[in-house]
């Protein structure tokens, strides 16, 4: 079957592009977690702030990804290199599910448990690290899982601005009207997304066992 032709003929290129793809998506989600975790905790404490922050981050999702990549050309330093633009745009997309789930996870902890912890004399920090975050972890990981799948998908579009990744094969295939080339980009990307989703889903299930 000729769909697999390119895939079989160029294993080295597929691996290289897959690694690029994983790096772009992974770095983006990593940044989104680093920002989203403290920000999510902060907005869980302040409902007024939560509305503003979630509204702002939500509005980013309204911008089509291709257009967002384009807008970032104008940003100093970021606009100099395509992977920088890609990572920033992807981080912004990945931020929403993480932020939303950190906030929901913290707010979802049984109030009686938090109340008991405070009444016993745990400090705010001890309560957060020993009680609230561990209990919210299942929900937080669910958010990260959505972010990862989202990032792997949108990373294919980052190839349009020359950021690399498996999208390169897809765009090249589109330009050359070559199904085998499109397939060589799309199949590994789909497998990556599926694998990430399943493994994080398994991890999430383990975390929720005791909650």
């Amino acid at each position, binding site marked *: 079957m000729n769909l697999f032709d390119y895939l079989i003929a160029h294993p080295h290129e597929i691996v290289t592009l897959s690694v690029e793809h994983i790096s772009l998506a992974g770095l983006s989600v990593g940044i989104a977690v680093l920002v989203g975790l403290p920000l999510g905790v902060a907005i869980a404490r302040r409902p007024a702030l939560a509305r503003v922050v979630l509204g702002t981050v939500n509005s980013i999702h309204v911008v089509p990804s291709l257009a967002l990549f384009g807008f970032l050309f104008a940003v100093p330093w970021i606009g100099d290199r395509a992977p920088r633009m890609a990572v920033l745009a992807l981080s912004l997309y990945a931020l929403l599910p993480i932020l939303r789930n950190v906030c929901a996870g913290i707010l979802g902890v049984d109030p009686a448990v938090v109340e008991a*912890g*405070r*009444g*016993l*004399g745990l*400090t705010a920090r001890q309560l957060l690290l020993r009680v609230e975050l561990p209990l919210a972890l299942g929900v937080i990981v669910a958010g990260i899982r959505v972010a990862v799948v989202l990032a792997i998908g949108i990373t294919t579009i980052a190839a349009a601005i020359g950021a690399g990744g498996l999208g390169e094969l897809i765009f090249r295939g589109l330009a050359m009207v070559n199904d085998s080339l499109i397939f060589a980009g799309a199949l590994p990307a789909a497998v990556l997304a599926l694998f990430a989703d399943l493994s994080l889903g398994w991890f999430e299930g383990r975390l929720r066992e*005791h909650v």
Partner: protein
Amino acid sequence: MGVATTDAAVAIRGASYHPPGGPLLVDSLTLDVPRGLTLVLLGRSGSGKTTTLKLMNRLLDPTAGDLQVEGRPANEWDPIRLRRHMGYVIQDVGLFPHYTVERNIGILPAVEGWPSVRTRERVHELMALVGLDSTLASRYPRELSGGQRQRVGVARALALDPPILLMDEPFGALDPLTRAELQGEFYRLQTRLGKTVVLVTHDLREALLLGSQIALLDGGRLAGCYAPAEFLSTSDPLAAAYRNAFAAGNEQHRLPPAPASGGVR
């Protein structure tokens, strides 16, 4: 009535709590919690019992008036030190669902930086004290019965051996038999440990069984403070209403009246 004495573990002086935009929950309350005894806060829902309890460990700060704990103004206490000086048990128990029984009971020793061997010894000592089999140490709260969970809650509150114990309807969520059993055990435990206990309840039977003094709250104000025997004879209409409701329940079902001192003693 709550006469001001200097040897009160907790002394409440004209304290009010009025949250911004909400109703007045506690209204110029003056009350002493005598050292080593059990003070019951009795009243219907919304009478300010729980709020009064939260004023004691500074989960809430009074909007007027003040409180003294161990002779020292409550607002001069570091809230964390103050709370660790007072055990806290609530109706929903609030056990940490992701911690085993052992870690639940050992949470305060752990954050106080006790060596793990000492924490473990203390946990097993406490489990024996509250009547929990040591094989339950590795269980999670959801694997326990309601009565067992409540015992874990009491053990957890006692971990640092606090001189004062605050209990908010600790037996409220239990079935009647388990409740009576735990009330009886708690009475014996209290007799042995001699803690100062403040117990919130709306159950007259529990108040009479466990209380050295019963403070009757109504609409955030103190309606009266009585010894159990006084409570049964006072002409205060609210106390009388409680007695009548209690007696009606017994007569309706043709049961002999429950002994005032409680048969479980």
